[in-house]
Every structure is written in C-alpha cells, then in structure tokens.
C-alpha cells in the first residue's frame, strides 16, 4: 500500500483542487483530508458521513468558584496566560488559551481547580462517489490539531486494510508545524504544490526542508505556472539543484474556480488544458 500526501507550505496554492481531481482519476484508494482546521475537500467530493467519532484533545482547567479563595496562585503558575481575574467573575480560565497542562491544579491551595475532558472535534468516515473518505473537523480555537490528524491517519490505514486499497491519498494541511508533520509521517511521497511567486518559492524552500528533515521523498508541481514564467524557471532550477523532480506545470485557467463553484473535481467538470496537466502530474508521480 502506498501513501501520498499533497502539501503546499502555504495554503491556497491549489492542493485541494489537485487531490479532488486525483480522487476522480484513480481507482482503489482511500481519500483523506488532513486539513482538520479548515478542511475544504468535502466541498468537491460531497461525503455522506457513515461514522462520526468524538475527538478528545487536550483537557481544560475549570475553577470551582465556591472553593476559590482568590489567592492568585493559579494565575502565577500558568505559563500560557490562560488564567485571569475580573472584578465581576473572579478567577477564571480562558479555554481558548488553556493547554490543559494541570500545573494550576497542582498549585491551587484550595483544590479548587480540576482538569476536564473536552470534545475538541470530530473524526468522520464517509462514503463518496469516488470511494471512502476519511476526514475530520477540529472545533474552533483548539489545540492538538496534530493529534486529530494522527487519528485521521490511523482511520485511513484501517479503512485501507479492510477494503484492500492500494493507495491512501492525503490532502495535507498548510504550514510546516504540528499538523503538517503529522500528515507527512511515514508517507511514501510528498507532492508539493507551489506557485511561481516570490512567497511561493520561499514557502517551497521551507517545506522542502521539512520533508528532507524527516527523510520523505518529494516531487513538485507548479500550479498557475504561466502567471510568472521567469519564476517558474527559477523554481524548476531550484528543484533541479536539490535533486527533486518537477512532475508537472498546471496553467492558470478560470475553469478551476468554476469547477469549485460547481462543487466538482476540475477533471470531471471540464476537459481542457488544466485537466490534461493534472493527468500529467498524476502519471509523473506513479
């Protein structure tokens, strides 16, 4: 079984457009959305949820006001600025900042603080016209997106084994931090989607450092390559120096947005230069 993650460093480079199209092109796979923070793939694939599972991430501290003596020890202990007092309501925890470490529970002389579990999001297993899809939604203002990504990855593995799939196709998350690292762990290939802009080049360099750091084989695809062909050449040259293959160049075309508005993978929405280029990219990574 092969696992491929499509990532971009920066968001908005067309990663989800590509994954949506691959989902329509390839047979016998599990489709995975690891962008649990701001997932978009479902807008193209219209999953019908068949299993929904609560995700408990980090815990949250809660102060029992009837026990609290307003001594302020907890506020001093908390390294994450999650506790503050106001005149109206006394000492209280800001759940958006609390990392559930439990230090305040330990230092409170009145035993007024406890850690409570909280539901931080949901993991889903769904049916789509293109095969089984595994995805999730993190609640807003939550930490632990990396952990939820790991839950999603494990679900994907199980589904793939059960269904005898040869491929796990993963839409990665943006950035280079915790959720990205979790969406790359142990995959066979990272397909990096970039744009020929100065920021695109900069982000590409950062994400390549990440894949190299974790020893993950990579390939690059330049989206909207024709909006700045000098920059596209620069990216190709940069990849050549790093020994990484550019597997395809996708031209800019308004058909991509039109397909998104129609809620369809672009290769299904219309034939043409973009769909042809996406097929070339897919062949290039196989």
């Amino acid at each position: 079984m092969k696992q491929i993650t499509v990532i971009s460093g920066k968001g908005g480079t067309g990663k989800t457009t590509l994954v949506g199209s691959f989902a329509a092109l390839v047979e016998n796979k599990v489709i995975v959305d690891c962008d649990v923070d701001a997932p978009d793939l479902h807008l193209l694939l219209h999953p019908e949820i068949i299993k929904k599972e609560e995700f408990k991430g980090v815990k949250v501290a809660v102060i029992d006001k009837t026990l609290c003596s307003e001594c302020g020890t907890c506020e001093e202990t908390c390294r994450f600025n999650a506790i503050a007092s106001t005149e109206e309501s006394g000492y209280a925890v800001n759940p958006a900042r609390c990392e559930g470490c439990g230090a305040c529970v330990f230092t409170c002389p009145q035993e007024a603080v406890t850690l409570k579990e909280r539901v931080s999001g949901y993991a889903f297993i769904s049916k789509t016209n293109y095969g089984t899809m595994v995805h999730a939604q993190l609640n807003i203002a939550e930490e632990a997106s990396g952990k939820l990504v790991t839950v999603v990855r494990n679900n994907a593995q199980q589904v793939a084994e059960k269904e005898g799939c040869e491929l796990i196709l993963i839409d990665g998350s943006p950035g280079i931090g915790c959720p990205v690292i979790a969406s790359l762990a142990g995959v066979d290939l990272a397909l990096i989607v970039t744009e020929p802009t100065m920021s695109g080049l900069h982000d590409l360099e950062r994400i390549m450092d990440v894949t190299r750091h974790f020893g993950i084989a990579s390939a690059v695809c330049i989206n909207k390559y024709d909006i700045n062909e000098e920059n596209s050449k620069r990216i190709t040259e940069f990849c050549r120096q790093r020994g990484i293959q550019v597997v395809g160049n996708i031209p800019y075309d308004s058909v991509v947005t039109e397909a998104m508005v129609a809620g369809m993978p672009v290769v299904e929405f219309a034939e043409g230069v973009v769909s042809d280029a996406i097929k070339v990219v897919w062949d290039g990574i196989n």
Partner: protein
Amino acid sequence: MGRTMQQNGEPMIIAVASGKGGTGKTTVAVNLALSLSNVQLMDCDVEEPNSHIFLNPVIEEIKPAYTLVPRVNYDLCDYCGKCAAACEYNALVAVPQKEVMLFPELCHGCGLCSLVCPQDAISEEPREIGVIKTGKSGDGNVDLVYGVLNIGEIMATPLIDQVKADLDPEKTVIIDVSPGTACPVIAAVQGSDYCILVTEPTPFGLYDLRLAVEVLRVLKIPFGMVINKAGIGDRKVYEYCEKEGIPILLEIPHDTRIARYYSEGVPFVKAMPEWKERFAGIIDKVLL
C-alpha cells in the same frame, strides 16, 4: 504624510487573518502598513512568514526564541516516576534506576514536572524553537518584527507570544496572522482592537471564512472583511456578509497587474499609488 489608526487617542492593534491560506492576507497586511504612517508590522505567521519578502527589510536584530524543558539532576532523582505520571503530554518516561527520558518535541514547557518532583531534582533549561527578527522596511517607513519557526518544530504558540512581546505601544500595529482557526491563530489575534478578515469569493473561501468568523465572535473582537480577487467565483461570500451584517471594508479586484506584482514580491501600492488612499480609507470604516 499618511495616516495613523487611533481609537480614543491610542494607536490601534489591527490583526489581519483568514480562515483559508493563500487568500491575500499578507498582501493586505503589507499594503495597509505601507499606506499608513508610524506603523509596526508583526508577522505572526511563524510557520511561513512572508511579509518580509515584500518589504526588503534591513534586519537590525536576530534573537533566538526558547521554551523551557526539564533537566533532571540524577544526584537527587530517586526514579519515583511522579514527574512522568504528572505530565499531561507523555513527554517524560521514567526508567527505574536508569533515567528519566524526555521527548522534547512533546513537551509544552508547562513547568509541572519540576513543581511535582519531591526531590527537587528537576530544573529547567531553554530549548530553541525559532528566531525573532527585527528591522525596518527598505524605505524605512515600517518597523517589522517576525518570527521564524525552526524546521521540524511544533510549538508555534510560544514563538508567537514572544514575537508579540516586541509590540510597540506608540505605533499602529498590524499583525499578520497564520491561516486557520486553531491555537496559533488565537495567540496572534488575542489582544487586537480589530480584525480584518481576508477572503476570496469562492466556496472554499466562504467555508473557511465562516470558521474564522466564529473564532472572532468567541474572542469578542470586532471585524470586517476585505474581499480579494473580487470578480472570480460567485456571490455567496457577499450574501453571507450581508446576512451576518459584516462590513466589507475593501474589495481588491482579480487583476493581472496586481497578481503580477504579487508574484514578483512587490507590494502593489508602490506600483499603483492610487491604492494607498483606498487602504488608508479602511480606517474610517473600522472606527465606525
């Protein structure tokens, strides 16, 4: 010279955020900064900081940023395992009579283990997670502070907090926030007087925008919308803003010249100065 953003005589802190990445958040932050005077731009998108690409800054200072990790003094440790049992993140494993192993990438630097240890065997030492760079834009008009997270590092939030510690209270501060709605976004946005949300008028843009709106409502920070690449996609973002009573502060058209300047790393207000007044005009709408 240009304008400043003030509220009750105090300079304002304006966050620029977007649910989805790549919607033009950095474009808005940089061009707004260049359209005002007495500005500090803080790039809190520490995973992929991009503002500096557009500002060609002269860097004046680079300082490392740290979190604290425990260090065990084995002359005192009796391998009781209380530290490992207390750690909520499983960052410590006590091996009897041998060692207390730390997995630094799991450690949040909360300090609980050192509080818990009955032998006082745990002290804390700094571990570098990234760097903070400070400087001025090439033209000298914008102060820039930005954080760069080390490769392979997962703790973005403490780095963001440390970038924000350099906030200059004498200036209008513009914060470039990382995409999404999770912890790093909260850390960057919190404490702002206003948030500008940047979106594109597409289904992806709308879905992620709704999540960002929820976050700002929870944090009780007033906000308005800048629509980038206006003209592509559909009208749903506009309908949503209308229905929710969210003001549209500015529309930036989908324009090949603007896209070209962006791709070259040029802030488009420099090449198209008529846009400076439009960006500065956001203030009047923010203060309503």
